[in-house]
């Protein structure tokens, strides 16, 4: 087999060296009746060409050739060739977790740069080296707030990505956390009155997302004040990181949980992405996940190491801040390379293109009789529209035109059955937007 670097002769030599006649002897510690007598029933071994063929055929059975207007937590942004060039370097791709710092300075410095970029983006003081994704980062941020305050109630806005909230519930069930939700206003922002009604001195965290699931940007200052007045922490989740190129960062939040997929990571049917937890320096010892720190070696040279490891599972075991071990290092590296390629002006320009295109799309859709915008708050690259007809039916028509229409909000918000979440990025062309509008017009007229 091409992945195994041994000739039959070498195997024999090695067997003799260990004093065995057959390889079977080396498995005698497994009781005989449990040793398999037949090969596993797996598909026949494939050559490299056949492996490529198998996946190429599967690739043709997906959405190739369709234009998509989906966002809802996963965004189609321009990626960069250099990012992939770097990611494919064997010294990054096939390297281990940097526990042995002397021979992993490349990974460690890249992590340090990632942590820095995340702080700059989010307006926070410290960021970790990645969590699995935005949903688990949000969950871990809440658990962090629980540890910091010692309290057990969490108030989560319904306008937070539905799957993020589901993941939080799964984790909360077993840590004694009580999760309660509060709603939104006609502007699409969180209902601060409802929140006040729920906020008491037993709350560890108030969780909001901005831009939220409906695309609307939240005003965090007053929310932070309300939370703090009751000794609770404000957790801000961010699913669309590119928004930070044009939207003020959530520095009023105590903990930020961000999804970094927008920074150069392919949608890849849901993963792998990279989540980040960013917060204040004074909370760092309760932060989950790895942290790379700057230091010097015995000769005074600057270097980097994993640090504050006593928070982590391999030392703290039962008392760890999280059980996370493997994170999403390579994805974080992709985000780092991509963001340095974008640079200060590039990210700003990209964000502004998103805004312009989304505004244009809204304009085109609003020209259609019966179609109007559902929420009035400011938005970035996603907005909610109301159709006079079922969104599903409209989308079924759009599919005929090879358009994957907007996200059907009714799937997770039963009160929003006529509403659709439209996402437009810098990758969407004017022509595609016009085709969407024409398609919707046709579907509604039918």
């Amino acid at each position, binding site marked *: 087999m091409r992945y195994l670097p041994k000739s039959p002769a070498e195997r024999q030599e090695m067997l003799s060296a260990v004093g065995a006649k057959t390889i079977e002897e080396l498995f005698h510690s497994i009781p005989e009746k449990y040793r398999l007598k037949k090969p596993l029933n797996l598909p026949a071994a494939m050559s490299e060409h056949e492996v490529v063929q198998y996946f190429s055929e599967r690739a043709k059975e997906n959405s190739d050739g369709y234009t998509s207007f989906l966002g809802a937590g996963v965004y189609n942004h321009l990626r960069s060739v250099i990012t992939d060039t770097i990611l494919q370097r064997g010294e990054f791709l096939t390297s281990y977790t940097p526990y042995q710092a002397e021979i992993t300075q490349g990974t460690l410095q890249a992590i340090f740069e990632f942590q820095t970029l995340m702080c700059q983006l989010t307006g926070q003081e410290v960021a970790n080296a990645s969590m699995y994704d935005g949903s688990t980062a949000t969950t871990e941020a809440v658990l962090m707030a629980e540890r910091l305050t010692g309290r057990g109630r969490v108030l989560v806005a319904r306008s937070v990505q539905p799957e993020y909230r589901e993941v939080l519930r799964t984790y909360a069930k077993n840590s004694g956390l009580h999760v309660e939700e509060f709603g939104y206003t006609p502007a699409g922002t969180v209902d601060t009155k409802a929140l006040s009604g729920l906020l008491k001195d037993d709350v560890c965290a108030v969780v909001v997302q901005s831009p939220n699931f409906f695309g609307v940007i939240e005003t965090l200052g007053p929310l932070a004040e309300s939370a703090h007045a009751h000794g609770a922490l404000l957790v801000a989740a961010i699913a669309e990181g590119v928004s930070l190129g044009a939207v003020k960062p959530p520095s009023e939040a105590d903990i930020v949980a961000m999804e970094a997929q927008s920074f150069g990571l392919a949608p890849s049917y849901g*993963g792998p992405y990279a989540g980040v937890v960013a917060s204040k320096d004074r909370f760092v010892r309760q932060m989950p996940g790895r942290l790379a720190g700057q230091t010097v070696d015995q000769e005074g040279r600057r270097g980097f190491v994993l640090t504050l490891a006593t928070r982590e599972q391999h030392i703290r075991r039962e008392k760890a801040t999280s059980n996370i071990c*493997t994170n999403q290092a390579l994805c974080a590296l992709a985000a780092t390379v991509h963001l340095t390629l974008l640079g200060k002006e590039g990210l700003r320009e990209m964000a502004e293109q998103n805004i312009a295109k989304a505004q244009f799309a809204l304009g085109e859709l609003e020209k259609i009789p019966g179609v109007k915008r559902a929420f009035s708050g400011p938005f970035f690259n996603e907005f909610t529209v109301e159709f006079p007809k079922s969104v599903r039916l409209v989308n079924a028509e759009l599919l005929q035109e090879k358009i994957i229409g907007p996200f059907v909000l009714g799937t997770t918000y039963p009160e929003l059955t006529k509403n659709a979440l439209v996402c437009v990025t810098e990758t969407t062309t004017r022509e595609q937007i016009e085709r969407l509008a024409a398609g919707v017009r046709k579907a509604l007229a039918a």
Partner: protein
Amino acid sequence: MNEKIKKATRHTNQNEGLIFEKSSPGKRALDWPPLDVPKVDPTKLLGEHHRTSGVEGFPEVSEIEVLRHFTRLSTWNYAIDLGMYPLGSCTMKYNPRVNEFVARLNGIATEHPYQPQELSQGCLKILRLLEKCLLEITGMDAVTLQPAAGAQGELTGLLLIRAYLQKQGNARKTVLIPDSAHGTNPATAVIAGYEVQNIKSNADGQIDIEHLKEQVTDDVAALMLTNPSTLGIFEQRIPEIAEILHKKGALLYMDGANMNALTGVTRPGDLGVDVMHLNLHKTFSTPHGGGGPGAGPVAVKKILEPFLPIPVLVEREGGKFALDSQRKESIGRVKAFAGNFGVLVRALAYILAYGPGVRQATEDAVLNANYIRKGLEGVYDLPYTRPSMHEVVFSDVLQKKNGVNTMDIAKRLIDYGFHPYTTAFPLIVPGALMIEPTESESKEECDLFIDAMKAIAQEAAVTPEIVKTAPHTTRVKRLDEVGAARKPILRWKPEVKRSEAAD
């Protein structure tokens, strides 16, 4: 440098500062197609929310600077592509490049998890085939591909156990974990809402069955077992262990991190395991990437199937696949969307390349470990003498006599051109050297490793200082971890200077 170090030689290596230190206003690395819709004024639209200038402190560099920056950084790393990692329980095997190629295909990398399921049949077929292969390999009844890593798989597994027991009327309070277990096991048990009770290993490094019988009470939900254990030794009495647990209504969880010793040779499901996770970034060759991403699928027996996390892959009429999130008894969602799909693609590519011949990989892995064990027996102390499977654990007892410990030996191994083995784990072996070569190492590489370890043992006996102060040939020497923890510097700031950061 001396001639006895055959595998590595010093070479001029590029320096490189932080990317922020190369930044200068006006430099750019990416350009855009011009806007094809009317420009808008973001301040008018966003009002007080508008971030009027670019992100403060963000680098401004050119394309070549970015490329050089990260290329130079990469040359400071050791990697599987360069040579062996003898890291115990990490299974640092070859990451096949065709896996990278197929994961990047248009139509694979580009799919949105919310796109219509009828436009995702290719993705769903991939998931289904991977599920079938993993079920065949593990001998279990059902599997979830959702968890993003081994630790998350462990949590999922424990939550499944909890849900099952809860349905029976009592979720119970305790999880038993051997003192040789990986740290994620107890950390996870606590997150799942259980108390941890340690169970001691006996003199052979196996579970002490008599102690187990005493410790399994009606309050015990499960035993988390790693097999082979972290000592690389097969837990011979697993079926008995399973029976003891089942008699008391408890379940057997197997940490599948060491599956590289079992694939194609035996199946955990046949041994009585109720639930287990796999580490695709270990046994199934997906790349470590400096710390992830990985994936931690969880395979279960039928009794746990109703509780699997959503979404669950189902087959509908006409052979179409769908992701079903309407599962009444499910423990819920453990991660957004559909798992680390890109990692799952790579794992499937690995399995398809091997087919039923994957047993050969296991055999070579076990052969390599035993060959190295034979080569180093007598040179290093072997605390447990039962047969090793895919990994072997020595201790530094003999070298300690001269004040040389496992960490020193590991650092000296770097000068010999290798990545260190796993030091100081498992905890039950003080001064452990945990070595797992995997099947990807040739006889030549194994011989170089054995020679290196023998040479270091010799140095420890005769010139211990050179070992205690290693490594000598790396870009940086041993780093001040104490300073890094006392005064953490976790991000670049414009005012922090270069090597004076020691102050």
